[in-house]
């Protein structure tokens, strides 16, 4: 055991764009030993994905490695010719991609991807194998990743499999050649929390059984606790801290790591915040809502018998996984969609001439028009409200003050803002028309955890200042534990559990709620122990089996 399996030493990477050169990695050094599980964590722009690409040799054309070595079993791969580097792919190390949908070409069958990967790897290794032999080997690998019907999977197009199945195929793809090192780039991030949990368990099992090493790239500290022995913390292209997993998570040395851990909303323990219940009258109430899409044989009930009351001043959370119908409920409550049967009663009185509710969307990158300045985006609702001239300018300044942005930012375009600043602009836009209720549709899902923390704080302050009522849709239960005063859990169009947030977490009644809470990746072992117990049968019963 002289050389570690992977040794990165003094790695510098430069990116050149529009004639400007930027250093994205500075003096990166770390090792991964055989059979070791190492996590590379950091927020957006920390350079963790670039590091993985540099190791794999898939950096974009405008990137150059200006200094450093990447050694695989003692050989510097940066000195190898292209063909020798290609030969390492899949054999020495394999990559598990982040987004299981976009990682497959939509017009080719799953089997075709797998077969081509295997065929060219065989050819490089000088192996001659027939199509049927390869098919048999692929089927064996697919069974390894717990896909029960390999033939069906191979003959399916990517769009015909569920997200979890696609992620499993991607893992299978990485296993085709028994690599020594598995590099996983945020696996499961695009999936539901219960599916993600399954995928992480699978990766853990495979790594242990095959004796592989794992380099896990993630921004989720809960995931780190689950799958890593050692952690490398990155920030803006530098390594800030390296250490064993328990030490980093429980006694970090660096302030940045501390801040990062602090920003993670806790699920249990002393740091948990509890929002007070509201005793005020209802502002919107929905009674026995049903919503159907499609007709005839394709009829699909998206929402079944949902009755909820939104009280003035409360933060109501509607939690559920993809396809559970939570967004449809929110749209019906705001009058954006009409229920098939059932009624929505607006009890509160909106400000004269203004709508009662406004919405803040998940992704501020796409909900703001990239060709309009902040001022133009904010002016539109003000114009509708009849504000002009000096009055409008005053209101614009007031709105920017509310979301804690300098007035000078009014002249900026969305691409000049960070993700958190964009979301603040989106909140300001929602506030422009003086709503009583804000619908928050996963308002922080696209943000880094430290940014999420500041946005959540802002929302809490705004509620206190303006007396707002929030209706939040999310799948992030640990965030909702700290942010919502009341919580409802949706499963396949129905509300299966509802109650004050602390009560739901302390004594979850429905098995699905228990499964959902148990699947959340948490940072400390203490929290892990406080999670409700779930039997394997229960967990299996509620795995979402959507096929699109």
């Amino acid at each position, binding site marked *: 055991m002289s050389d570690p399996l992977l040794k990165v030493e003094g790695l510098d990477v430069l990116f050149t764009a529009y004639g400007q050169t930027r250093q994205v990695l500075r003096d990166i050094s770390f090792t991964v030993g055989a059979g070791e599980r190492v996590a590379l964590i950091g927020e957006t722009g920390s350079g963790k994905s670039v590091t993985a690409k540099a190791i794999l040799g*898939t950096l974009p054309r405008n990137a150059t490695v200006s200094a450093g070595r990447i050694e695989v079993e003692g050989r510097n791969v940066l000195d190898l010719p292209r063909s020798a580097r290609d030969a390492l792919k899949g054999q020495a190390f394999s990559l598990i991609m982040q987004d299981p949908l976009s990682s497959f070409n939509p017009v080719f069958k799953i089997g075709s991807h797998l077969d081509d990967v295997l065929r060219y790897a065989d050819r490089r290794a000088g192996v001659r194998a027939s199509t049927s032999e390869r098919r048999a080997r692929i089927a064996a690998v697919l069974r390894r990743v717990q896909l029960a019907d390999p033939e069906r999977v191979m003959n399916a197009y990517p769009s015909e499999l569920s997200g979890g199945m696609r992620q499993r195929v991607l893992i299978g793809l990485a296993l085709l050649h028994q690599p020594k090192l598995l590099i996983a780039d945020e696996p499961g991030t695009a999936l539901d929390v219960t599916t993600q949990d399954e995928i992480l368990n699978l990766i853990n099992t495979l790594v242990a059984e095959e004796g592989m090493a794992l380099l896990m790239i993630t921004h989720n500290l809960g995931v780190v606790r689950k799958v890593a022995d050692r952690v490398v913390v990155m920030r803006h292209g530098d390594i800030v801290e390296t250490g064993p997993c328990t030490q980093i998570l429980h006694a970090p040395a660096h302030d940045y790591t501390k801040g990062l851990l602090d920003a993670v909303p806790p699920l249990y323990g002393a740091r948990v915040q509890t929002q007070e219940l509201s005793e005020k009258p209802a502002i919107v109430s929905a009674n026995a809502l049903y919503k159907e899409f499609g007709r005839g044989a394709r009829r699909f009930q998206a929402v079944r018998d949902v009755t909820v009351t939104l009280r003035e001043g409360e933060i109501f959370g509607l939690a559920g996984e993809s396809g559970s119908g939570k967004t449809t409920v929110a749209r019906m409550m705001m009058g954006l969609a009409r229920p098939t049967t059932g009624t929505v009663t607006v009890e509160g009185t909106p400000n004269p001439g203004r709508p009662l509710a406004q919405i803040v969307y998940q992704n501020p990158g796409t909900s703001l028009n990239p060709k309009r300045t902040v001022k133009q985006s904010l002016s539109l609702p003000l114009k509708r409200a009849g504000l002009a001239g000096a009055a409008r300018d005053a209101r614009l300044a007031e709105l920017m003050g509310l979301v804690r942005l300098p007035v000078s930012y009014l002249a900026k375009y969305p691409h000049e803002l960070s993700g958190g600043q964009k979301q603040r602009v989106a909140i300001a836009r929602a506030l422009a028309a003086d709503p009583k209720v804000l619908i928050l549709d996963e308002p922080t899902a696209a943000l880094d955890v430290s940014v999420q923390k500041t946005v959540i704080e802002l929302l809490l302050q705004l509620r206190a200042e303006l007396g707002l009522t929030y209706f939040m849709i999310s799948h992030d239960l640990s965030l909702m534990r700290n942010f919502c005063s009341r919580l409802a859990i949706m499963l396949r169009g129905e509300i299966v559990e509802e109650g004050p947030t602390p009560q739901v977490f302390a004594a979850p009644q429905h098995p699905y709620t228990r499964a959902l809470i148990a699947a959340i990746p948490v940072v400390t072992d203490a929290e892990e122990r406080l999670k409700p117990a779930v039997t394997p049968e229960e967990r299996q019963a509620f795995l979402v089996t959507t096929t699109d």
Partner: protein
Amino acid sequence: MQQNPFLAILTRLGTFVLVMIVLSIMIFVLARVVPGDPARMALGPTATPEQVSALRTEMGLDLPLPVQYLSYMGRALHGDLGMSLLSQRPVTADLAQTVPATVELVLAAVIIMFAIAIPLGVMTAHFRDLWIDHVGRLVSLVGVTIPSFLFAISLQLIAARYFGDWPIIGRMDHGLGFTGGPTGLMLVDSLLAGRLDVFLSALQHLALPAIALSMAGIGQITRITRSAMLENRRKDHVLTLQSFGVPERVIIFRYLLKLSSIAPLTIMGLEFASLIGNAFVIEMVFSWGGFASYGLNAILQKDLNAVTAVVLVSGLFFIVANLIVDILISIIDPRMRRKEAR
């Protein structure tokens, strides 16, 4: 949630019938409201008013428009599109003679279009911003901006100046004494009859008009293919294959090309309209004797039955072309197949 595919096809055919009915009503009314009396034009300036009104009665022009339309459609459904005033023959006979010539020309143009534009698009995308890309851009620009008749005339001039023997009008050399065959497509009929000399002559005749006709499409489809290739190149699935060491040529020619052919195919369906429109001009320049030049004469002479028939056949061309495009796309893209069935 698969559904009966036959139902999907039936729905689609129903839409086509509807489009044809609307088209027929529009052209029927339009042809009759534009100024100029067809009977007067058919009989010439020397005819007496009595002769004109007699012909008008005979043609049914005195009847109200809806009645005229219904009786026309009733006969059309039985395969009777009326008599052409110009040729004094049934319109169907004229069409049978002229449509195959146009079909041959348009098909040849489409083949040339794809044969040149797709490889050019792939190359310009691959060698982005290198000299090949600039040449490709120039070719596209020339193809899109220069009107097709200018190409037609230039090609004729070049052929006449430098290749003295190259035929620049007609569909084949009449000296060969070939009278045609069952399909009406010269290239096919000559092969069926085992006449290689006729085949070569027909090919020679076809080359110039087909190239002239395809130029505009080549420009467009090159650009569309290029941008589709470039866009799809950036996708994650390319990275997946790259990171497992699948060779670049396989990624480009197998994975990217298939995915990137959807956009040009879609454009092709729309392009068909301008292809037929351009065929009217090209056929005139090359004395092609297709149904486009037949239609042009009919319009100029206000030959009502012929005009209506020509427009309907053009519409049919367009619809069939788009049906083929839709079928091709649904073969390529499984997501479309599922949407169809839904």
